[in-house]
């Protein structure tokens, strides 16, 4: 994991001091609300429905135990004892006091954390694959490049007042687990024919009101050119992105208006002016950053005998076996596995976690996973380096803590935004919908029979809950002051990215679980052997689902 040097520490601590002075001026009435607004946003501070909300950056999802313990302390002392993992791998506090925020930021700085640019019309926290460095399909570890981007984008003087927010994601594996096709810039690490490392660059993806799949503007960008090329893209956007209408201000609208070919040509032209500037990355810097992401001290094991022992144990215990099948994943290194902690047990808002749970997770990470944890954009946590021999003990401990619900990748592993319970943008609540679905579908055997299904819920069209890319997407809408829910089918993240189609007229909150039940019935009746929900949907089309769900009304 990256470790700050004196430069990083100084920059982050000066930022805390700057924000402290700004907040003092605001509280003293010397700074107008409209001017303080972008300043607090660029330090992660929103003012929400009931209280301020502070979004803390978790750069590309990496957390160490000191950070987890500090977060536990902060949620306990400055908040109500719990926090929330967001769909961009960050952590949100729901109830801090505005005047405490400079102190919270100072405490975060002690453990090399910050809330810089987690909101506002600027370059946001860079996200990546939660299995970076350990995935079996990895081409190159994306984290060093993420860190290089984090430093470049942090307090960038030219790009703090962009037309709209700007999100970058990096994937280093064959399968995209970072939703790079739905980011303003998506970077796919590739190797060319001569073995050189570079990036396939996608621009103009995004969710929100106008969901768009990002398009390739460059097939191969040599790694040294990363920052100059990003600079060309963001400068062009800063000068040419629309500023007359905030709903048309994202880069996706600019790319679409220009057409991707003309757009790519304009970027090349912009890049031509700066591609040999001092921002050109040096091998020394790439290697320096890579030196922070070396292998931990793995022990050597025989994979086959590890796997055999594990299978033997699994056969004797159905619950353990279910957990292995759903929450435990392959690892690049023999005798190791990844473990996903499900933050989606029945009865808890998806992604919520308490102070004492954070501490317990820190202890377990120390014991079983080299003291590191990752957050995922599916709002779960990951231990990336667990020995197979430790899995059973870890499973027991996680079961006690409530993190061993064996539902990863299934219907109840929902992505869900905070919605109308917290967020002032929301049109409708989303947490109670998630809860109702979890209550309706609490039979694990049924869930397993359904196989892989992604169900995503957003409380408004800003789409923080990624409803456009759920196999089943649920969107909260406001109809004359009442909360209704529109359902979409066929969305997908990953390599076969797709945007879901609206099923038809929206439903009341109470009827949502029953509608989901009908959709699943159609799938179960129509599927052919081994076919996943989304595959059946693409084969049979939307009509049979529509007919079943709206049958009564006809």
């Amino acid at each position, binding site marked *: 994991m990256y470790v700050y*040097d004196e*430069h990083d520490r*100084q*920059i982050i601590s*000066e*930022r805390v001091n*700057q924000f402290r002075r*700004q907040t003092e001026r605001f509280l003293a009435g010397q700074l107008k609300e409209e*001017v303080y607004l*972008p*300043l607090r946003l660029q330090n992660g501070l929103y003012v929400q429905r009931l209280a301020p909300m502070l979004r803390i950056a978790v750069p590309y999802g990496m957390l160490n135990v000191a950070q987890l313990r500090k977060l536990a302390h902060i949620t306990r002392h400055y908040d109500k004892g719990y926090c929330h993992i967001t769909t961009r791998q960050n952590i949100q506090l729901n109830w801090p006091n505005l005047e405490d925020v400079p102190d919270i930021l100072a405490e975060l700085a002690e453990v090399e954390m910050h809330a810089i640019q987690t909101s506002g*019309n600027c370059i946001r926290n860079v996200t990546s694959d939660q299995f970076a460095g350990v995935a079996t399909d990895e081409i190159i570890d994306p984290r060093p490049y993420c860190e*290089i981007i984090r*430093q*470049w984008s*942090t*307090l*960038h*003087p*030219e*790009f*703090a*007042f*962009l037309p709209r927010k700007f999100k970058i994601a990096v994937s280093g594996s064959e399968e995209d687990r970072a939703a790079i096709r739905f980011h303003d810039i998506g970077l796919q690490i590739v190797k060319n024919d001569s073995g050189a490392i570079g990036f396939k660059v996608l621009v103009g993806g995004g969710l929100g009101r106008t969901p768009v799949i990002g398009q390739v503007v460059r097939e191969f960008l040599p790694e040294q050119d990363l*920052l100059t090329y990003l600079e060309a893209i963001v*400068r062009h956007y*800063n*000068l040419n992105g629309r*500023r007359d209408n905030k709903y048309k201000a994202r880069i996706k609208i600019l790319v679409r208006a220009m057409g991707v070919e003309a757009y790519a040509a304009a970027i090349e032209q912009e890049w031509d*002016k*700066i591609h040999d*500037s*001092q*921002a050109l*990355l*040096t091998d020394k*810097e790439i290697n*320096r950053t890579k030196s922070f992401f070396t292998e931990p001290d793995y022990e050597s094991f025989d994979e086959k005998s590890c796997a055999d022992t594990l299978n033997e144990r699994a056969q004797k215990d159905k619950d353990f076996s279910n957990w292995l099948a759903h929450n435990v994943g392959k690892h690049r290194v023999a005798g190791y596995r990844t473990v996903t902690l499900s933050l989606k047990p029945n009865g808890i808002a998806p992604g919520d976690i308490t102070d004492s749970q954070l501490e317990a997770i820190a202890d377990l990470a120390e014991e079983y996973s080299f003291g590191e944890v990752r957050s995922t954009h599916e709002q779960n946590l990951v231990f990336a380096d667990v020995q197979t021999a430790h899995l059973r003990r870890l499973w027991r401990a996680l079961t006690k803590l409530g993190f061993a619900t064996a539902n990863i990748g299934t219907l109840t592993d929902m992505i869900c935004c905070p919605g109308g319970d917290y967020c002032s943008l929301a049109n409708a609540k989303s947490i109670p919908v998630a809860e109702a679905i979890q209550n309706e579908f609490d039979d694990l055997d049924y869930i397993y029979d359904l196989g892989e299904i992604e169900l995503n819920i957003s409380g408004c069209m800003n789409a923080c809950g990624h409803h456009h890319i759920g196999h089943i997407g649920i969107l909260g809408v406001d109809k004359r002051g009442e909360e209704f829910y529109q359902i979409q089918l066929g969305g997908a993240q990953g390599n076969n990215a797709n945007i879901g189609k609206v099923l038809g007229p929206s439903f009341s909150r109470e009827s949502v679980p029953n509608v989901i039940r009908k959709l699943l019935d159609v799938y179960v009746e129509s599927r052919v052997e081994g076919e996943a929900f989304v595959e059946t949907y693409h084969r049979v089309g939307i009509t049979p689902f529509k007919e079943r769900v709206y049958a009564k009304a006809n």
Partner: protein
Amino acid sequence: MPKLIKDGILTQNEWQWLVTDEAAPSAEALETGKWIVPFSVYLTLKSEGLGNAKNLGVWLASADNVQDLAPHLKDLNIVGLNFEKFADGRSFSQARIIREQLDFGGEIRVNGDFYQDQMFYLARSGVNAFLIEDDANSESMIESLSDFSDSYQAACDEPQPLFRRRV
């Protein structure tokens, strides 16, 4: 009368900023005063053979294309950038292009709806003069110019990014 912070100190402002709908300065006005005028006015005055680097400068609106300024920079000592709305960040890129790509060594002055907490970033982007309200707290504003003692990126104040300076 607005005040001027230039190169980090409070200075006498000698230039008049001609707003969009004001009449262009006459030949006499140019003899006796110094004017920063909108780009269109600048082009008109130059076509009439009026003004020189000592008494005539130009300011760009956020929507103006900086590249159009390129052929004129050799005749200019001062370029203004106007903030219509503080949230409109185009001036940052305009300043940086004028400094770094068009190699302008003269004064880049901002006016309008920018605020104190943008000054550090503006300075990094190549702005060296700030036109501020008469009643503004210039001391506090000047302090903001040194909010940070180091930065990650290369910019106009530091041609080398931090990664090239780290030992």
